[in-house]
């Protein structure tokens, strides 16, 4: 479990705001059923489009459903969907990446060519195409996103695996007579997994955003299940009368994505570059060292 400790110690050195935003998101997601003041799907047309009040803290939507409850329940939809996508994408990606890193030569060439094709296409387009062929639905969305996301983790894990395999102690292990399976499962896989887990944390925001985008387009989470993107598109026709119903889910989603982006920035996998200060450089070296640290 050393990689878990390495993971947690990396997390401790990250921006507090980002860790806070993501922690709140995960907390709401995990404990949503016990936190919602009302049933998120209970309609009450007599209470439709209410303003903020004691019983409905953030008002109600056009069907009289409590907005606060729906926002909280939507966090759960997001957390569950995101985790499923990442677990699926990482299992495929890490397996393929480590195999390519372990067995160099034509196996690596072939596998990485497939990964290249996957990386040449934007994730959202791949996910949309898969949904277009196999139809909408919860599991189709999860599978489509996993299919779109695995090449990224495959590439990272191959890079880490190659790095690990080039270290002297692997050669020593071979000389000592360690079996290939032992080297793969006891030495290569845990190390690679620790590194890729950091990457996944940074990439989780993009997955959450993709789920919201697909739901916004009506191809992801289907009503009445609350989901931020779907809540936003649901309220769009009533933009003039109650803009709050559009703005609140958008803000929630933005906060989560900002949190994950800041985390990503801290592990130098950001899309938005920051100036390189001595502090950041030092942190990067530390992170890179952590990625490839061998689990005993």
């Amino acid at each position, binding site marked *: 479990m050393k990689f878990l400790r390495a993971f947690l110690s990396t997390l401790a050195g990250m921006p507090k705001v980002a860790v806070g935003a993501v922690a709140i998101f995960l907390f709401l997601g995990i404990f949503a059923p016990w936190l919602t003041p009302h049933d998120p799907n209970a309609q009450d047309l007599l209470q439709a489009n209410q303003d903020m009040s004691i019983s409905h803290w953030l008002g109600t939507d056009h069907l009289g459903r409590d907005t606060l409850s729906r926002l909280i329940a939507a966090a759960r939809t997001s957390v569950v969907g995101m985790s499923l996508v990442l677990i699926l994408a990482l299992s495929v990606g890490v397996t393929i990446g480590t195999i390519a890193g372990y067995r160099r030569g034509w196996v690596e060439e072939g596998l990485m060519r497939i990964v*290249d094709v996957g990386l040449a296409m*934007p994730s*959202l*387009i791949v996910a949309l195409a898969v949904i277009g062929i196999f139809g909408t639905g919860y599991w189709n969305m999860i599978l489509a996103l996993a299919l779109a996301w695995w090449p990224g983790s495959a590439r990272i894990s191959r890079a880490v695996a190659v790095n690990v395999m080039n270290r002297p102690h692997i050669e020593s292990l071979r000389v000592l007579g360690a079996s290939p399976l032992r080297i793969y499962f006891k030495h290569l896989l845990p190390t690679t997994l620790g590194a890729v887990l950091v990457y996944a944390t940074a990439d989780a*925001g993009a997955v959450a955003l993709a789920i919201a985008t697909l739901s916004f387009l009506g191809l992801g989470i289907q009503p009445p299940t609350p989901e931020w993107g779907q809540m*936003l598109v649901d309220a769009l026709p009533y933009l003039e009368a109650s803009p709050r119903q559009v703005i609140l889910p*958008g803000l929630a989603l933005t906060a989560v994505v900002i949190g994950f982006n*800041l985390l990503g920035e801290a592990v130098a996998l950001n899309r*938005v*570059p920051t100036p390189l200060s001595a502090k950041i450089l030092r942190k990067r070296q530390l992170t890179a060292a952590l990625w490839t640290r061998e689990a005993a």
Partner: protein
Amino acid sequence: MLSLVSRRVRNSLVLLVLATLLCFTLVVSAPGNIAVLIAELRSPNASFADIQKIEEELGLNDPIPVRYAGWLTGALTGNLGISYKTGEEVGPALASRIPVTAMLVAGGGTVALLLSLVFGFAGAMWPRHWPDVAGRGVALLGASMPSFFVGALLIYAFAVELRLVPTFGLAGPSSWILPWITIGLLPAAVLSRVVRVGLEEAMARPFALTAVAKGLNRRAILFRDALPNIAPTYINALGAQTGVMVVGAVVVEPLFAWHGVGDLFLTGIRFRDFMVVQACLLIFISFFILLNLLVDIGMIFTDPKLRRQGS
């Protein structure tokens, strides 16, 4: 240099062939019988014979490699099949929509280009002062806000409340502004950081120090010495962001009721109109491969190190 370019072209062609294979496989692996769908479209009470006739017509009984070859030669000559939903030819329908998307992406790109250069330069000119801090904040927000939320906020503020521009549609310059900003904000955010960081890194190099020693002021050094240095990085990032904008078109076009390729793709997905989905996917993928190629070639031309390496 030519050998370097030709190697990139060859790699792109291989990628393109693999991508067409993927497009084709995706539709072949679709669940359900396509012939039944078409037969039902043509007449509600189609007989088994009708279905067989359609299967024969479309060559659905041919071996997979033959079907792939047929589809590929068709696609190369612009024949992308017939929509199951409307019965129209997909090729011309797609072609008529490309200008709309091109206009959206070009407009968004202009917004991104202008904003990123202004914010990036301001940040590098006065590092760690308010323009820099503000630029960084706006960039983080711009990179994190989903485009549909940005669009909805812009519609609410400028179309609903202030009534300055139409809420949706494609009618005259006033209706272009909101979609352009919506699609250009994310690239602007990312690119402004690329400019800002690139300039700062260039300013830390010895040649910049020499320029300072010669007595040049900071603005002159930024423009004349630092700017050419960020060109390869900027072109690379601009290419990547053009791709991001094309993907963004899928979200932004329906929001503003623009009938571009993204909108067509979505309609195809909603009605599971495989030929439309396949055609749009093919166009998207070809575009991305071409874009990557152009970026690579652009970098070879702007980066002297790469240029020398090839010859």
